[in-house]
C-alpha cells in the first residue's frame, strides 16, 4: 500500500494508545456486518481486518503486537478452510473440526465478559448518585482515559475509511498541491466547534478533496481527544459520530512537533 504517502511530510505520531485489542476489532467487524458469529465469513472479515490494521499503522497508533498475531491466525484459518475436508485431519464432530472453532469460542466468551462489563458500567452510573457517610467514592483520578468512553477507536477509523473512500482518486497535480498540517487542522477544529457547537465527522470531511487533508484532519481530531479538548459521541451503534468541544479553562494545547509540521 502506498497510503503511507498520505501522512504529513514529517512523521506525526498521535501517541494515542489503543486500549482495544484484536478481539474487539473482530467483534466490531462482525457486528458491523451483521454476520453470524458462529459462521464467520473468514475471507471477508480477514480482508476488513487487514484494512483496519493498515489504517491504524498509517495513523501510527500504538497498536499492540497482538493485532499482528491475530492477523496471522486469521490467515491460517483462511488457508485451512481452503483445504478439502479430508485433508484437514480426522473428521469427527463437525464443530470441533471447523478451523474457526477456537476463534469463535474465544470471541463468544469475550463477548460475554464485555456484556458483563457493560452491566458493571450501568451499576457504576447508578452508584454515582449514591453516597453514604464517609463512604468515599473510589478516586479515579482527574484524567478519565481519553474522551473515548462512548466511541471506540474502530468507529473513528471506520469514519476515516468512509471519508477516504469518498475522496476522489489523487490526481497528478495533487503532488504539487498545498500540504496540510495537523496543527493547522487543530486550530480549524477548535474554531469549528467553538461555543459548544457539535460537528459530525461526516460534515467535517465533506468537501475535503485531498486524502492527505482528510488524514491530517483525522489526526487532529485524535490529538484533541487525547488532550481532552474534544469528546466524540455516538447515539447509536454505527450512527454518525459527533464531536464536541469540552469547555474548560485549560490552556491551549501545545503541539510538540509544531515547528516541524
Amino acid at each position, binding site marked *: 500500500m502506498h497510503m503511507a504517502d498520505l501522512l504529513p511530510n514529517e512523521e506525526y505520531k498521535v501517541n494515542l494508545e489503543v*486500549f*482495544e*485489542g*484484536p*478481539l*474487539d476489532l473482530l467483534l466490531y467487524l462482525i457486528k458491523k456486518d451483521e454476520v453470524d458469529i458462529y459462521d464467520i465469513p473468514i475471507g471477508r472479515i480477514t480482508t476488513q481486518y487487514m484494512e483496519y490494521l493498515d489504517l491504524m499503522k498509517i495513523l501510527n497508533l500504538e497498536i*499492540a503486537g*497482538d493485532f499482528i498475531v*491475530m492477523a*496471522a491466525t486469521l*490467515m*491460517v484459518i*483462511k*488457508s485451512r478452510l481452503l483445504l478439502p475436508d479430508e485433508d484437514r*485431519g*480426522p473428521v*469427527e464432530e463437525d464443530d470441533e473440526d471447523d478451523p474457526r472453532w477456537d476463534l469463535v469460542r*474465544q470471541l463468544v*466468551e*469475550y463477548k*460475554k*465478559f*464485555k*456484556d*458483563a*462489563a*457493560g*452491566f*458493571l*458500567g450501568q*451499576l*457504576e*452510573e*447508578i*452508584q*454515582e*448518585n*449514591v*453516597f*453514604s*457517610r*464517609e*463512604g468515599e*467514592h*473510589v*478516586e*479515579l*483520578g*482527574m484524567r*478519565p*482515559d481519553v474522551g473515548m*468512553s462512548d466511541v*471506540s477507536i474502530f468507529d473513528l477509523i471506520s469514519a476515516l475509511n468512509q471519508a477516504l473512500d469518498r475522496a476522489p482518486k489523487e490526481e497528478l497535480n495533487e503532488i504539487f498541491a498545498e500540504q496540510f498540517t495537523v496543527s493547522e487542522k487543530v486550530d480549524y477544529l477548535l474554531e469549528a466547534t467553538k461555543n459548544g457547537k457539535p460537528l459530525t465527522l461526516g460534515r467535517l470531511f465533506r468537501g475535503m478533496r485531498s486524502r492527505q487533508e482528510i488524514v491530517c484532519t483525522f489526526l487532529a481530531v485524535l490529538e484533541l481527544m487525547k488532550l481532552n479538548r474534544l469528546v466524540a459521541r455516538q447515539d447509536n451503534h454505527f450512527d454518525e459520530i459527533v464531536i464536541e468541544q469540552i469547555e474548560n479553562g485549560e490552556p491551549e494545547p501545545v503541539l510538540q512537533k509544531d515547528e516541524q509540521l
Partner: protein
Amino acid sequence: MSSIEVLPELKQIIGSLLFAAKKPLTAKEIRKVLTDAGAGYGGPYVQFAEIKEDEIVAAVTELTEELARSSTGLCIAEVAHGYRLQNEINCGPWVRTLLDKDHNARLSKPALETLAIIAYRQPILRSEIESVRGVAVDQVLRNLVEMQLVKVVARSDLPGRPWLFGTTQRFLEHFGLRALDEMPGMEELKRMEKPERTKTFPAMEKELELRAQEALTEDDDESGEIEETN
C-alpha cells in the same frame, strides 16, 4: 456516666450504628457491637447482648421499610455482604453538588472488562486475563490494584509463582453489589473456561491421541505457521 430514661428499640440502635459506620455493617458485626456494649456498660445495656443474628436481620428489614415509607431521603442498601445507610438515588444530584463531585470520572471500558473477568474467574492470573481479552493488561491491572478494586489474593504454584488476583470489598461497594453472585450469569461464565460439552470417555481418548500427534509435529507447525499464510 450518662443514663437513659427510655431504652431504645433494637431497630433504633441499628439505625444509629449504620449512620455512624464508615463502611457497610454485617449482621455479625452489629451483633458483636451489641454484645460488647452489654459487657462494657452493663445494667440495662445487657438487654441486647444476647440478640441473635436473625433478629438483627428482621430489625434491619423493618427499619428499611420504615425509612422507605417515611420519605426521609435515606435508605438502607445491602452492599458488600452488609448494610449501608445511604441517600436515595433520586436525591443524588444535590448530594453531588454539595460534595463537589460533579465530574464524571468513570472507569474505562478496558478497566471494566478486566474487572468483569477477574470478578467471574477469581483467583486468576494476569496471563489468564490477557488470554481472554487478547491484549496486555498490566497497566490496567496496576491501576485497578491502586484503586483497591482488585488485590493479590495468593501466589500460584506455577513456575515463578505468579500472582493470583481477585476483587475486593471495595469492588462490591463501588458497584453497590451485595455479593458477587448478583452479577448476571455468574455460574455460566465461571465455568465457560472448561469445555462446554461434557466429553465422553472415548472422545477424551481420541483427543489425547490427537494431542500426542500434534506434539510430535509441533515444532514444524510453530515455525511454519506464518509461512503458511503466504
